[in-house]
């Protein structure tokens, strides 16, 4: 372990990697602060640029954007009451109220320190757990991979806010899109229709840029966000003794909750921040005061979302499976750099793994320094009009998609997915499972076909192998749970309807 950390220090402290770690953190903070572009959008836009870097540098920067956004998101939530990033939504509730009461400094400081503690806890878990999990998963055959991917998609869909059927439809659509292009085993073209661009398949970059970059622009063009920037001077940016005392428990619990939920596929930062807030409200002696400016309501979610952001790297580094959409994009970066990620990844590329780990420690410290003293600068940035921001996003989207193959068709694909993404959002079809499945699709197909060849066409292999069977049983149980709860809700609604029919004199007449 000590040798590995030394190796990581060596890599992370090289001037290039240090600079890109800083750039990643800075861009992450910006994405977190500026509403209208989340970390997935920023990473999708910057993916093509990273092809020119070494994989280590690319991952260090992309990871920096992700956890940087978690830090930055709290600033806008507290000062403007608009979450710059979805995981910071819940911070608005108490953070903004604290700012209104003249305690913006305390809220910002506890958010930053909580983030640092939660983030560090997450990295420690990632550092110590990953090598062991990788050892366990080394025995995984294509059969277990198929079951694991199925479970991953089911969990992702299960935890999604929208309907499970819609989520599954999006995941299946993503798998179909992943099948476009040349079949790797037979060499036959599938759904290509004589298009040279489609021969290589539908790329992750134009799809992700479209669904997260262009869709965001279209959605923001329809509404205008009201920004009421906090104008009073921010006093002390250091939490008081009392603040620390009240926040210690929430930070501790937030770290653990964030870490555990971060590992889960589909969990990630958003779920963990909401869950930790809900738990704090439950354990508090004054739950009624939540939403009125309780520091616990800032400390817990901000700690949890950072712990989750780091923990999400565990399934990626040990199994090659992304836990959330940002991880799916980072997996895409690995695949496009020609680096397979899986159980052997840590032993085959210790430089990358330990370099990224150490860079995360450095990045977390950089972020506290970036976020606290520079708050006045970030506040000024919030005043930037959307008419200036969206052309920048558009330019990067057009440049990024075009630079993939220097082909305008990639840009057309991106715009088509941007428009589709807008329609999906309006119809409440969450596009996240689609991108997730698009990344996993080719791996799933290869593993499925390998399994069927091994088993000579017998599907029973999925239930006769114990790990695979357990994974599939969990997936089936989750689907059943969802169906059952839907039935229960339907029954309850019917009862309610009947009651109102009886109670309503108009209907009776």
């Amino acid at each position, binding site marked *: 372990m000590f040798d590995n950390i030394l190796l990581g220090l060596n890599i992370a402290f090289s001037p290039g990697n240090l600079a890109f770690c800083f750039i990643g953190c800075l861009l992450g903070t910006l994405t977190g602060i500026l509403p209208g572009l989340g970390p997935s959008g920023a990473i999708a836009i910057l993916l093509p640029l990273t092809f020119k870097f070494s994989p280590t540098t690319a991952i260090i920067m992309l990871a920096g954007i992700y956890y940087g956004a978690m830090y930055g998101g709290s600033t806008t939530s507290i000062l403007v009451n608009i*979450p710059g990033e979805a995981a910071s*939504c*819940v911070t608005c509730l108490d953070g903004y109220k604290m700012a209104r009461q003249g305690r913006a400094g305390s809220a910002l400081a506890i958010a930053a320190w909580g983030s640092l503690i939660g983030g560090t806890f997450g990295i420690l878990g990632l550092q110590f757990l990953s090598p062991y999990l990788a050892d366990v998963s080394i025995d995984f055959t294509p059969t277990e991979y198929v079951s694991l991917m199925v479970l991953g998609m089911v969990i992702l869909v299960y935890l999604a806010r929208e309907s499970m059927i819609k989520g599954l439809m999006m995941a299946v659509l993503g798998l179909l899109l992943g*099948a476009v292009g040349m079949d790797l085993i037979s060499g036959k073209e599938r*759904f290509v229709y004589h298009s040279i661009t489609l021969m290589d398949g539908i790329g992750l970059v134009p799809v992700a840029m479209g669904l997260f970059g262009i869709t965001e622009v279209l959605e923001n063009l329809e509404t205008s966000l009201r920004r009421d920037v906090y104008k009073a001077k921010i006093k002390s940016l250091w939490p008081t003794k009392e603040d620390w005392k009240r926040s210690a428990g929430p930070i501790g619990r937030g770290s653990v909750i964030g870490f555990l939920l971060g590992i889960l596929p589909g969990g990630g930062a958003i779920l963990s921040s909401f869950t930790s807030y809900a738990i704090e409200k439950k354990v508090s002696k004054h739950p009624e005061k939540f939403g009125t400016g309780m520091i616990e309501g800032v400390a817990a979610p901000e700690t949890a979302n950072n712990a989750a952001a780091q923990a999400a790297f565990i399934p990626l580094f040990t199994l090659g499976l992304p836990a959330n959409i940002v991880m799916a994009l980072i997996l895409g970066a690995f695949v496009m750099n020609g680096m397979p990620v899986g159980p052997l990844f840590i032993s085959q590329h210790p430089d990358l793994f330990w370099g990224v780990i150490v860079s995360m420690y450095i990045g977390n410290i950089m972020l506290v320094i970036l976020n606290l003293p520079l708050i006045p600068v970030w506040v000024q940035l919030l005043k930037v009009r959307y008419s200036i921001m969206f052309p920048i996003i*558009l330019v990067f989207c057009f440049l990024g998609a075009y*630079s993939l193959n220097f082909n305008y068709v990639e840009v057309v694909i991106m715009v088509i997915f941007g428009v589709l993404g807008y329609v999906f959002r309006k*119809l*409440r079809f969450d596009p996240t499972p689609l991108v997730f499945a698009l990344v996993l699709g080719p791996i799933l197909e290869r593993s499925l076909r390998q399994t069927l060849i091994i088993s000579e066409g017998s599907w029973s292999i999925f239930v006769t192998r114990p790990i695979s069977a357990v994974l599939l049983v969990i997936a089936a149980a989750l689907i059943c749970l969802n169906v059952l709860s839907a039935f229960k809700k339907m029954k309850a609604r019917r009862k309610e309807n009947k009651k109102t029919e009886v109670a309503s004199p108009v209907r009776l007449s």
Partner: protein
Amino acid sequence: MAKLNLISAIVFLLVSMWVALESKGLGMGTLSEPGPGFYPFGISVLLLVFSLLLIIQSLIKLFLKNDQEQEEQKEGEKIVFSEGLQDAGFGFEKDKIKRVGGAALLLLVGSLLLDTLGFVLCMFLVVFVLVKIIERESLRFSTIIALCASVLPYVIFDKLVGMQLPQGILTIF
């Protein structure tokens, strides 16, 4: 909502049927030696099943005439974040559709004409129209932003980084 769900489910159903037919034509192979059409066919069957389920669900909801607001709100979503945060909302509104539809069409035309018009002209026109007409900014502001969004990236990425962006009809200069 149930109506929109029904329409989208029918579209997905048609897509799944089309993919299934195309996949069959690709060659299904056998279970022990799956062909190139095997996987997309299986996936299209799944899509077909889910689309049918959504159709049934939507029809039941239409039949029961449930209140759409009630049905959509899950517990986690009940938190009202702030007066400043606006929900993107469900469905389409006429005014918004005009703005977004126009912007989407412009982006689509812009991307199709990227090679013909060239990066600079294409980005200038797209950004200018969006800022001036959709965002209703002044002529001066829109021109400055459009120039910055077209000429600056061209100078940086084409001339300095050497990315070779399309020049289109501007090659004549």
